[in-house]
């Protein structure tokens, strides 16, 4: 049995993954899944979120600028409530993310985990690893020229 803290941590994990996922890829992964009906609690809405930074990287906050975000909330017939806040202006992306969030709280969690979240996590890790590997190749290896030997 998971503690409430573990449940929140797991949910934060999949919600973030869904928010960062390429919208088309999430759509493709859900194509063959049978998705349940739902009622909107909040229809998809695109807005701006003011992103903050810290002075000197570590100090007091300041406003850096906004980013586009689309949010929505829905309830399945079985009662689970799914939320989404996803980067960008794609309403279908937000809807799919909220559906997966709701399904992850019910009997279809294992199915969603293996058919949607696991591939998204693996692909994100590969994208990040790919950039880190290119960055690593541009790391300078200093050597000192020794004179007079």
């Amino acid at each position, binding site marked *: 049995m998971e503690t409430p803290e573990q449940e929140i941590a797991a949910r934060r994990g999949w919600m973030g993954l869904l928010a960062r996922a390429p919208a088309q890829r999430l759509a493709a992964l859900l194509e063959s899944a049978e998705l349940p009906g739902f009622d909107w609690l909040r229809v998809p809405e695109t807005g701006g979120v003011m992103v903050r930074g810290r002075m000197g990287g570590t100090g007091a906050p300041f406003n850096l600028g906004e980013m586009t975000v689309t949010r929505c909330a829905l309830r399945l017939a079985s009662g689970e409530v799914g939320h989404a*806040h996803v980067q960008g202006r794609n309403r279908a992306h937000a809807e799919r993310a909220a559906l997966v969030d709701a399904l992850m709280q019910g009997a279809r969690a294992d199915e969603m985990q293996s058919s949607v979240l696991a591939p998204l996590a693996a692909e994100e890790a590969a994208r990040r690893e790919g950039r880190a590997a290119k960055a690593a190749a541009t790391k300078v290896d200093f050597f000192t020229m020794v004179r007079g030997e």
Partner: protein
Amino acid sequence: MYVAVKGGERAIDAAHEWLAEERRGDATVPELTVPQIREQMALAVNRVMAEGSLYDPDLAALAIKQARGDLIEAIFLIRAYRTTLPRLGHSAPVETTAMRCDRRISATFKDVPGGQVLGPTFDYTHRLLDFALEAEGEAPRARTSEPRREPTPRVTEFLNKDGLIQDEPRSDGTPPDMTREPMEYPAGRPLRLQALTRGDEGFVLGMAYSTQRGYGRNHPFVGELRIGAVEVEMEVPELGFSVCIGELTLTECETVNQFAGSKTEPAQFTRGYGLVFGQTERKAISMALVDRALRWEELGEEYLGAPAQDEEFVLAHSDNIQGTGFLEHIKLPHYVDFQSELELVRKMRAEAMGMASVKEAAE
């Protein structure tokens, strides 16, 4: 005096039709797509996002296409769109210490932990035109090496441990927001940073360069420059916890500048800070230099009358949309204003001539 208030519509419609045709250019040349601009004009897209103050690469690419590559016009389009968006909230401050760096260099320490990582830079290119780009070729592929997985430590933290640089004490207050309340002076550092990060790159560069040339010199070293991805988290009240809502590429520059100190406080390096949307390092370095110059009062320095030290001068002129709006409006019809000036000058001339003729008659 009669002023025509109607009659422009047909001419305006025709002008906009022609604009659309000119935007498309030679129809035998393939049309640019928005994804092509987003992927292949990425640094223009980054500039439009930074100065438009809205992170959305697809929108910025669309704005560049619509503006025919006029970046200030594109920024204008983004700013106008931004005002139509409901504000959903604010993020937690992004943690740039956890940035997954594409590039990370330090001009102060050669052997800095995490290393000097050049990333996809124009530095060390020869700035010779590459005519190979005229032809279509295979997509190039970068080489790879064993990736680093641990976070990259901050250079200023090393100095901070020994007390050699001014601390940046962490706090969590609500910063003022220039998009919500009108600017007032003195603005203070959080508002200055907000204005500088969305300020015109050319203007901020010019101000920074003026400090290097002696107008408020502050002896900067680039302690660290990093470019990479950070996650953005936001508290969602319905959930009662914060979630990651996306990921941004940012450029961060920390400068290490000459000392402050007094009889009671030992000498310490001081800091300038730049943080900008996208891969925008010229802007981030410029921002850090101007930030440092504007901190003269808080650091107990003298006001030398340098433009880059004058907060109101810098902030009131750094916004290219305000600037271009006021500048370009003077080309729009001012017939009534000008008529009154014309009448005034005629009257003054008539009076002067009348006086001259009276004087002549008297002689």
